[in-house]
């Protein structure tokens, strides 16, 4: 009898560990959004940014980041804890090229368990709705989703993986789109001063 109880206890512990080990990746995976429904917008859009980088590809990419470049060093630190980065951004020449259902399909996922809305900005005048959602993982954040939708633009950014809340601030402060250009401009100006 005693032996059966101890065997059951052992089995219980093993099952607990198995469930815990399964739950960890599921938490990370839970932050990944299904964005396949947006793919049909590619041919309608005049400008498209489509980035799909999963864990191994991100780690592979981080090996090629330059340790001497300030931005790339920061990017490396950021990418370290990430399991995936997915960006789908469409810009249209005409209004209403995407449907409300396209956005709702994304928002429905973000209204699911784990996600909470961090920021929202709505404008009836410009028909723009901007939202930032986060998925909490203890003290840290297990995922971020940014949804920017206006009459001529639809952008969804989905970052999956552990990210420190301070890193969001970092993310917002660095990696400006024209950072490279402004860097070149500064270099040129500096050169001009020298000449």
């Amino acid at each position, binding site marked *: 009898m005693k032996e059966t109880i101890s065997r059951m206890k052992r089995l219980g512990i093993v099952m607990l560990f198995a469930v815990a080990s399964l739950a960890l990746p599921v938490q990370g995976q839970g932050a990944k959004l299904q964005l396949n429904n947006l793919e049909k917008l590619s041919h309608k859009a005049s400008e498209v940014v489509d980035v799909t980088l999963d864990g191994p590809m991100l780690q592979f990419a981080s090996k090629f980041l330059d340790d001497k470049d300030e931005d790339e060093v920061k990017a490396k630190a950021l990418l370290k804890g990430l399991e995936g*980065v997915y960006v789908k951004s469409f810009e249209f020449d005409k209004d209403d090229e995407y449907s409300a259902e396209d956005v709702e399909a994304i928002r429905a996922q973000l209204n699911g368990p784990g996600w909470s809305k961090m920021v929202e900005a709505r404008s009836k005048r410009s028909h723009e709705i901007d939202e930032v959602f986060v998925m909490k993982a203890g003290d840290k954040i297990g995922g971020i989703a940014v949804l920017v939708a206006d009459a001529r633009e639809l952008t969804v950014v989905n*970052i999956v993986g552990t990210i420190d809340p301070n890193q969001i601030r970092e993310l917002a402060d660095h990696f400006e*789109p*024209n950072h490279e250009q402004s860097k070149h401009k500064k270099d040129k100006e500096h050169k001009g001063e020298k000449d």
Partner: protein
Amino acid sequence: MHFSEDDLRAALSHQDPSPDFTQRVMASIGQASERRRKAADARFASLVPPAMLRWAAAGVAACLLLGTGWFDFRHTEGERAKEQAMLALRVTNAKLNHVFVRAGLQHTGPAEEENSKIRKEHL
């Protein structure tokens, strides 16, 4: 047998070598080294047949080509992945800034003004 002192002196007296002595010695050395080389070649050929040797050389060349090609491919892929990662971070930055500014959580900075429309890459 008895040797007289004169016999010994005659036997041990200095004698010049024949004129072709050097030539004969050199020829015999050459022949010996040739024989050794042939024997070594024969031993190697018995161990590794010439056809196998050709295949091995072709294999090494193919491996080198494949290795170089694979290295180039991985490097290109890595650079592409890096560009994609940096682009993703830049778009995220631009969009986060945009939302934070619109939500009144952040003042409009020059970066936001300049980058109100993010750089897009045609696919």
